[in-house]
Every structure is written in C-alpha cells, then in structure tokens.
C-alpha cells in the first residue's frame, strides 16, 4: 500500500518532466508535433538521434533517401500535398550542405520545413573538426529562421519554435543544428508547443477599411482580373476565392504555384499567367481596369517587364507578407492578412455581378491560342510525340484527380499548362528556385503523405538524372509513385532559348542518355519505353492501373518548343505564339 503510493507520488512529476538524453528529446519533440514521417541520411554527428529513431521506429517512420538533397525535396513534396510541416534530417558537414538546395527551394516557394542537422561537439566548434561546417552561416540567407543548439536543455523550446515558425504566417524552412554533446547530454524533458514569439507577428490583422476600399474598386470595375497564387493554397482559402470569383463574376488566372486551387474546368478559370502561361490572361493583364492579386508576389516570370505591366489598372494586393507589398508592383490598395480571413471579409461587400463581354475576350484569345498552339500540342498530326499529348492521356486516365509533380524545364511548363486539376494541392513543382532534380524525390514525399492519391511525376531527361539515385528510395520503401520521363535527349528549355536567342548554338544541351528502362529495372521498378503514338494510350493505362511504382519513358520530339512565350524583359502584351 505504502509502496504504490510512493510510486504514484514519484510518477507525478515524471509526467511533466522525464530525464532523457538530448537525442531522445529530439524524437519526442517530433512526435509531440505530430510528425509521422521524416526524410534523412545518417552520419557521424547525428548518430545519437538515429539510435533513438531506431528505438522509436514504430512511431516515427524514417525514410532513408539516397542523398540529402532528396531528403529535403521529399519533405517538400510531403508538405506541399498535405499542408503539414516536412521534416528532413542530416549529419554535419557535407550532409548539412547537401540540404541547402532544398532549403533554398522551400524558402522561395514558402514551403514549411524543419531541417535538423547534427554538428560536431561544441568544444570543437570553429576548429575545422572532421565534418564541421558553419551550416548556420551557410543557411542563414535561405532560411526563415535557424538556430544552433549546444545544450540538451535547449532542444524542446527550440524545436517547438522551429515548427511554429515554419508553419505560421508565410511558411518557410527552418534549420536546427544540434551539437553532438547536446545529443548525448541528459536533462529533464518536458514539452510545450510554441504559440507566440514576441518579436514575430506572422499574420497581420486584416484592416476593415482596406477591405472596403478594395470592395468599392472591385464593385466599380468593368474589366476586373484576379491573379491568385500559392497564398490561396497555403491559407486554405480555396472556397473563399471561389465564392469571390463567382459572386463578382471575375475572370481569374493563376501563377504556377497557385495551380489547382480552383478546378481547371471552372468557367471563370482563364488559365496561367507568366512566361509560358496562357495567351489570354497575359495579354489581358494589360487591358483590365482592376488587377486583384491574391497571395502572389509578382515574380518576374509572371510580370515580364515591370515598366509595361498593368500600368492601366488599379492594383489591389491581398497579401500576408508586408514585405511583398509594393516590392515589384505598386499597389493602389494593399489588404494585409491571410487570404482566408481577408477574402471572407471581402465577400459580403461585393455586389453580385457578371462581366460576360469581358470574359468573352478571354474566350476569343483562348481560341487564338488553341488554333496556333494547343491544338498541335494535344492533338498533333506530325509523327513525333508531343509532351502535351502525354499530359492529355494522363488527364483522361486519372480523370483529373492525380497530383502532378513536375521538375523544371519544358515538361514542367507543359505539365502546368495542360494538367487538369480537380482538387487543390495537386500541382507540386519547383517554381521560384527552378530546381532541376526536384520532382523524383518530391513525388516520394507527396505519395507518402497522401497514399490515397495518384501521384505522377513528370520529369525531363536532364532533371531526372540529377536525383536519379532516389529510385533506390522508391525500391526500398516500395512507394507506388508513377514516374514519367519525357525524353527529348536535350536540356529542352535551354535548347529552346539557344534556338530562339543564340542562333541555334546548342552549347552543352544535347544529352547522350543511358537506357532509362534498364536503370529502373535495375531497381526492380516496372518500366516501359514508348516512342510511337499508338503505344502511348496503352502504356499510360498500364501505368495508372499499376499498384506499384512504375516508370514510363516517353520519347518525344527532340526539338519542340513551348509556346506561348514572353521573352525575358518583354511586356506581357508581347507574348509570342510562335
């Protein structure tokens, strides 16, 4: 009797705090944050944490990628499809530096990531110890926040902050560097989630007066145009955007990262803006009277020459990040705040409206684009296969339900132009940084986060070979991703520029490629190659029906170009169709 009482008394404080090592604390913190999968690669300085991951493997699944860059991209794919924070882990030195490309990609594309790196013992810091690198210094310009931990007792608070910062406001990557001694040390562990930081205000308050100003301008507009970006997806404001579009009858276009927030088939969805976007929304950007930008940042690939971008229009900018307002395009009204809150506030202030003749201008220009570009991309009459017809077949087979993960280059533009989206968070691509090699590992992460969805990676033959080793991860984890390599034996987008702007001097853009099917088969992945139109249908059916991972190489026309195109430095009005 006395004994049990004593035990009960003893147990009470342990509920609040238990004495554990720093490395066990890392794992416990991740579990507290609801993490179920992490991507990483072990090494000397992170071994204590891996030892704990071994013990906790039934609760926290660690996926061994074949390169640390793959770990960050997989974590990005995981985050982009789920809206949750992706987690990547690596050792010190080269392990940590290999994360940088993925971190930079996540920073520019606002993807919530927590990266944990091991570091040499704190007594060795600055001594050029084995596998020591100043990863805090290196990662500073490409992280939303970073921090080095040298004592075990700091771990819970720092990891809690990391998750809060990564996910809140405009999301981004965070890096935590933990010295080896901090992993070994014991301390009294307890965990408390972070809900505020005094110097950090992630979401500005929506100002009612600004919303009213915006509504007044929109209500008076004759030719309004919405351009939405990823802010709508990150802010989970898809329904609010749809309601605003429909109530005010506004033609609406999207940036590459905004794709899939509104279904492709929506009558007010007028396509993609930007360098290889659709003809109508680019042209008509310079004819609208009110440009309503929602959760987008006027990237140079969207605006073309700023001197001739939407100068005739009043510009309204709905934006969570105050630093984006007036950064590239001067706004008439800026509504700060998250898209969900501000669009909800806007909706009741809008008049029900329609702009049929204005919408007709989009339809007319779509017809022009269809005749000169789309028709030949989707229903080609020439012999060689086009990338567009591959996308069309995938659309047919997936009924627009697949998540499309694209790499960077011509195939990416084709994928984003022609993929049909029926649900949000379905377009996963490297937009801002343009990271070749992104798609294969990102598809792994996406499929693991959303096993119920079809995940199709669309990759060029160049980018594929930048992270091709992740086929090993696919083989080992049996993650059933579909991989489509659109092979033109060229670095196609660079070649296109060489053709258009460098008199066809194809400097280092032709690729002598290996037998991709054999390579996939070497990893025991089902694989097929097609090069004839009559084989395509069947191959895509087979791929989509497959229960396991599947590799499909489609040999496409070698020197096809992606149009429309706004040449660098040109105006959106000067978009070319050929």
């Amino acid at each position: 009797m006395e004994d049990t009482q004593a035990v009960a008394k003893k147990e009470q404080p342990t509920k609040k705090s238990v004495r554990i090592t720093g490395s066990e604390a890392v794992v416990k913190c991740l579990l507290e944050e609801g993490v179920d999968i992490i991507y990483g690669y072990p090494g000397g300085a992170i071994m204590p944490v891996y030892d704990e991951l071994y013990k906790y493997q039934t609760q926290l699944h660690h996926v061994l990628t074949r390169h640390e860059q793959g770990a960050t991209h997989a974590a990005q794919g995981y985050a982009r499809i789920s809206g949750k924070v992706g987690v990547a882990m690596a050792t010190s030195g080269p392990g940590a530096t290999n994360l940088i490309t993925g971190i930079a990609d996540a920073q520019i594309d606002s993807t919530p990531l927590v990266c944990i790196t091991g570091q040499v013992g704190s007594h060795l810091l600055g001594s050029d110890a084995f596998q020591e690198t100043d990863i805090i210094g290196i990662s500073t310009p490409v992280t939303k926040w970073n921090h080095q931990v040298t004592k075990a007792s700091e771990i819970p608070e720092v990891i809690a902050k990391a998750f809060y910062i990564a996910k809140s406001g405009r999301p981004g990557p965070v890096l935590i560097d933990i010295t080896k001694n901090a992993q070994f040390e014991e301390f009294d562990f307890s965990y408390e989630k972070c809900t505020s930081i005094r110097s950090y205000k992630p979401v500005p308050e929506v100002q009612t007066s600004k919303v009213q100003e915006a509504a007044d301008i929109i209500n008076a507009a004759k030719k309004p145009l919405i351009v939405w970006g990823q802010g709508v997806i990150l802010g989970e404001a898809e329904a609010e955007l749809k309601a605003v579009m429909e109530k005010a009858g506004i033609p609406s276009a999207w940036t590459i990262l905004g794709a899939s927030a509104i279904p492709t088939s929506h009558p007010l969805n007028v396509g993609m803006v930007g360098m290889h976007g659709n003809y109508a929304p680019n042209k008509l950007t310079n004819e609208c009277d009110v440009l309503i930008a929602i959760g987008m940042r006027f990237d140079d690939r969207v605006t073309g020459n700023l001197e001739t971008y939407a100068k005739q229009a009043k510009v309204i900018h709905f934006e969570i990040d105050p630093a984006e307002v007036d950064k590239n395009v001067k706004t008439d009204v800026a509504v700060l705040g998250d898209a969900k809150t501000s669009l909800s506030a806007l909706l009741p202030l809008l008049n029900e409206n329609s702009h049929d003749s204005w919408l007709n201008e989009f339809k007319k220009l779509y017809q022009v684009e269809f005749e000169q570009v789309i028709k030949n991309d989707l229903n080609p009459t020439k012999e060689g296969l086009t990338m567009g017809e591959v996308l069309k077949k995938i659309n047919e087979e997936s009924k627009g339900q697949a998540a499309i993960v694209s790499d960077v280059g011509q195939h990416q533009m084709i994928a984003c132009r022609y993929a049909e989206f029926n649900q949000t968070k379905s377009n996963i691509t490297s937009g801002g940084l343009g990271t070749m090699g992104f798609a294969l590992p990102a598809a792994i992460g996406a499929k693991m986060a959303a096993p119920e969805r079809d995940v199709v990676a669309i990759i060029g033959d160049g980018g594929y070979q930048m992270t091709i080793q992740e086929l090993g991860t696919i083989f080992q984890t049996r993650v059933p991703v579909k991989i489509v390599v659109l092979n033109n034996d060229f670095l196609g987008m660079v070649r296109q520029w060489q053709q258009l702007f460098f008199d066809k001097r194809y400097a280092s853009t032709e690729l002598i490629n290996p037998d991709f099917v054999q390579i996939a088969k070497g990893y025991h992945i089902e694989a097929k190659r097609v090069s004839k139109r009559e084989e395509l249908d069947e191959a895509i059916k087979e791929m989509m029906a497959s229960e396991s991972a599947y590799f499909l190489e489609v040999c496409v026309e070698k020197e096809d170009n992606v149009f429309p195109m706004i040449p660098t430095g040109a105006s959106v009005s000067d978009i070319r169709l050929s």
Partner: protein
Amino acid sequence: MDTEKELYTVSIYTENNVGLLNRISAIFQRRKINIESIASSASEIHGVFRWTIVVVVTEEQIKKIIGQIEKQVEVIKAYYHRDEDIIYQESCLFKIKSDLLFDEPQIQNIIKEGNVNIVTVNKVFFVLEKSGRRHEINELYNELSPFGIMQFVRSGRIAVTKQEMKISEMLVAFNN
C-alpha cells in the same frame, strides 16, 4: 525622384541572439549595398538590442530593405531616418607621441578649442577622444595629422530619433 541615392540611418530593435548580425548584413550584401557603418548595443529596453546602420541608397531601396529586415523572426522593429530626424554622433580616438604635447603648443590649443578629451597620458604616447559629427572629426584629423598620428580610429554612427519609437508598447502588443 525615388532614384536619387541618399544617406539613411537605419535603427533596428532585435532580440539579442547569435547570428543576427549575419542575417541582417546578408540582406544588404545580397543587394550589393555597402554598409557605411554599423553599431550595436543594448537599448532602453532590457534584453533588447539596438542596431544603427548607415547606408547610401534610394528611398525605394531602403523601404524594401526595411521590409526584409522586419520580416526576420527576431527583429522587433526597424526604421529608417534622414539626418534631420535624428540626433547622431560618432566617436574617435587619436594616439599621438607624448613629446608633441610639450614640443608643439599648437596641440594644446587644438585640444582646448575642439572640445577634445585627453583619455590617458604616459611617457610614450597620449590618447585623445572626441565625439561629434563626421565633419568635426575630420577637421580634428586634419589639424592633428601634420604633427603625426600614431593611430586613429573612428566609431560607427549612433543615433537617437527626435520622435518616439514606442518599442515597449509594441512588445506588449505582440505578446497579446
């Protein structure tokens, strides 16, 4: 109008954390902007650091830079000012051979008339200190240099604003 470069003094209130200097200077470095001077110290609020950075840029640039600085998680608030909005000073030290203090009576006049402090004197050298505007320090330098200066150093600008900054209230508001 926005394209003319001017001298701006930037005041930044931050948490006191390792690495923040790197994070802030990277914002200038990335845009290839030379930092004319930088000073960091405690501020009027316990535990809050204050940075004073001087740069020559256009107003459009400085506005965007302030946005990028304020975006940093550990930055509480950043401001930019023109010279007329602030009270500012720099400080300098001169190390000069002690013989000159006795051999060159002119030096004693310079010290008296220029509001210069003698920090220390020993057999070998003496050290002068002056705080003031840049041009005053330059004048003093020009006056002393004919006699031979063993060492000279000048600090970055420090400044307080004429207007109130209300950082404490801001911190309270953030916490709520």
